[in-house]
């Protein structure tokens, strides 16, 4: 009996230690003293502020696997979802700015945290690398009466506020996309937000909503299988996806839209810009090399995304552009309470 008791207790203690290790292993490493010249000297953590399996997660995992080859250390991807991605983003900002804690970001929500009041820092306080771009695509189910973009646009005009759009939620890539089209086309639609891109797409398949303006990478296989029909894309030229006939740009139908194209979600890595220069340099090198890899090329082909590979400067231009569209749309629709003017974000 006594022996049994001791066995059980020691088993419990071993298990508890295992749990503690599993949880803290990554953190402890990140908390160690930073080294000077040589970088990196230990494993890197990339925080993805969204659930595993989403667009950001998949992109970041593919990208960091390639980057870890160049950097010679492991890159651990940690998912910390919550509050539209701001919880994970904040945790990266609150960690040491030593380059060992990086954020894997979907850039559209990333630009909204200031006006939404989630964070004090805006995109200008970060240094960003943009890996991929996935444009919005207007898609309907196979049985839908809308055969092309023209007929859908005509329906918006004919039945103001009656055509339903299923998106991944307020402020999501899909919502931004349709808001921009609405402005250019001067029509009304009915916004039906879901919790994530996948539920919105399923609702489109099931006929609960008339169409979805979600991102190309979320729907690629549905296009290939012929379950969804792509009407138009918010890319500036026709979008090419393996096994699907090229999707025309909506700019062809709606010329007012052309100046804001391409529109969609950008995925990449970002970290506080006061990180040590040697870390920035090494990450920049590894990022550029990873973008040339076969893995990323295959990933882009499979998922229907465009490899952009913007460095920090180009990314900042893109972010300024995105921020103005995203923040002003959120403010104008009443979702964001703080005016983008406060952060010197120009009107689109």
């Amino acid at each position: 009996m006594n022996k049994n008791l001791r066995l059980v207790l020691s088993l419990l203690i071993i298990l508890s230690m295992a749990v503690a290790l599993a949880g803290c292993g990554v953190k402890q490493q990140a908390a160690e003293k930073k080294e000077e010249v040589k970088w990196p000297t230990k494993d890197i953590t990339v925080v993805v502020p969204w659930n595993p399996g989403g667009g950001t997660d998949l992109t970041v995992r593919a990208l960091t696997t390639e980057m870890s080859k160049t950097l010679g250390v492991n890159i651990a991807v940690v998912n910390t979802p919550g509050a539209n991605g701001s919880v994970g983003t904040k945790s990266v900002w609150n960690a040491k700015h030593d380059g060992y804690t990086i954020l894997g970001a979907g850039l559209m929500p990333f630009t909204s945290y200031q006006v939404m009041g989630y964070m004090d820092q805006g995109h200008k306080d970060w240094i960003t690398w943009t890996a991929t771009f996935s444009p919005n695509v207007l898609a309907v189910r196979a049985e839908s009466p809308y055969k092309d973009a023209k007929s859908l646009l005509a329906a918006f005009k004919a039945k103001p506020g009656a055509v339903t759009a299923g998106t991944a939620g307020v402020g999501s890539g899909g919502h931004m996309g349709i808001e921009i089209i609405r402005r250019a086309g001067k029509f009304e639609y009915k916004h039906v937000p879901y919790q994530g891109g996948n539920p919105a797409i399923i609702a489109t398949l099931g006929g609960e909503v008339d169409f979805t303006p979600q991102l190309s990478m979320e729907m690629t296989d549905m296009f290939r299988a012929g379950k969804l029909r792509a009407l138009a894309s918010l890319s500036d030229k026709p979008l090419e996806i393996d096994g699907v006939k090229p999707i025309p740009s909506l700019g062809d139908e709606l010329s007012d839209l052309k100046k804001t194209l391409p529109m969609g979600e950008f995925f990449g890595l970002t970290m506080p810009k006061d990180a040590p220069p040697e870390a920035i340099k090494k990450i920049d090198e590894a990022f550029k090399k990873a973008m040339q890899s076969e893995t990323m090329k295959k990933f882009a082909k499979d998922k229907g995304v465009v490899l952009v590979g913007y460095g920090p400067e180009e990314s900042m231009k893109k972010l300024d552009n995105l921020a103005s569209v995203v923040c002003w749309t959120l403010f104008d629709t009443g979702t964001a309470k703080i005016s983008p003017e406060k952060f010197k974000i120009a009107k689109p």
Partner: protein
Amino acid sequence: MELQYLLHALNLLASPEAVVTIVLSVFFGIVVGMLPGLTATMAVALLTGLTYKTSSDMAILSLIGVYVGAISGGCQSAILLNIPGTPASAATAQDGYPMGQEGRGGLAIFLATSASALGTLGSVIFLLFLTPLLTSFALKFGSWEFFLLAVFGIMICGQLASGGDPLKGWIAGILGLLASLVGIDGLQGVPRFSFDNIDLMAGFSLIPIMIGLFGFPEIVAAFKKKTAVIGELQSINYREGIRIMLQNWETIIRSTFIGVMVGIIPGVGEDVGGWLSYWAARMRSKARAMFGKGNPEGVIAAESGNNACIGGAIIPILSLAVPGSAPAAVLMAAFWLHGLRPGPLMMTETPGFLYTVATYLVAASFIMWALGLLISRFTVKILQVSPQLLMPVVFLFCVVGSYVINDRIFDVWVMFAFGFVGLFLSHMKFPSAPFLLGVILGPMADTNLRRALTLSDGSILPFFTRPICLFFAVIILLMIAAQMGLFSRLRSKEMNQEAGGTK
């Protein structure tokens, strides 16, 4: 053709590498499932990272092993400690814990583990036959149906766990619903009850709430009164166990069916599967009064129901690329990472994969059965440890378990806060389980109702015109009506009036 795929999968399994992989990962899954705070979702996510660089066959084998192990492992802590190891095993605790207190913990674990294995095996049959056909069933569930399904789930859980007074169960369920409203709402992105606090904006995580609700009262209870340690553990009588299993074959089949269907529906997972099967078993059982007091049938129903969700949840992954439950969502991400493309093209592009998954599931459930029983020989002795010695260790688990979910200290505070809620509930004889289910299903009820009303411009007519809705609406109304009928009968007896029309 099918035979060829099957042989290929079996061939993969026969290598020593595969055997070691699956045994280790099922073991890891069971351990994670047993520990409160470490869930199946997390186990699969953790292993996805670890197996990133291994070959895709071994990686998927290990992930399926962990998934099966974790869902069934949760039954052990539910039976031994009354703290469900994963949310999926909350229903198991209803009858499992009383069994453990009677010294029949070993038998309860035997039944739970066997039922888990059979539930998984049964779901594989559905997986093989339904995957090529299905898709339309899951698509029939729109916003209206999801809302009613959530309400239905909370109501039956409230009724089952209440120990005689469904009203208390429903009140607990509604309190859980309210707790789930904290945070940024899922539709408009508006922060609710967050007081500009970023942690509150993210909402309360499920796991700290669960640990607080179930763990805290147990820990406090251990120090409040001197409980007698169970001296005599009845050794597992396998013959009796098998006899009980055979007697309940009907329950197993019914629960498996319910579990698979719940698994297929996206957004509801193993937890709801366990409760629904438990409810159905109780409704059908002759020994209804024995439920909640250590009825083996309850354990069997809950465990075969929650494990059958595994096969069910994989069906829509393979046919639609829509995961049926939270751990299945991580599993799907892992499929993607390993270059597989689950979804509408799966059956045409890689038709063999379905058979591979099925074979792995079968292998995992056999190994889970053997390992689960082997481990239970040791874990069941926990019942003999004095609670005053055991509970400080359990308390440590509660704190660590709350923290590791998101690496946030805030979650530990949440655990404490809901620990006091749990204490209050148990003191006032309100059941904790409906509260938990309210938290789980709250966002689903909330966003789907508001979305449905947006779609219909505020009309509630679709509740009665859509067939699946009508089905749920009628059952819910009947449940409420039965409750009110009972009230009036009691009252009329008390007031000594003629009992007239109230049956």
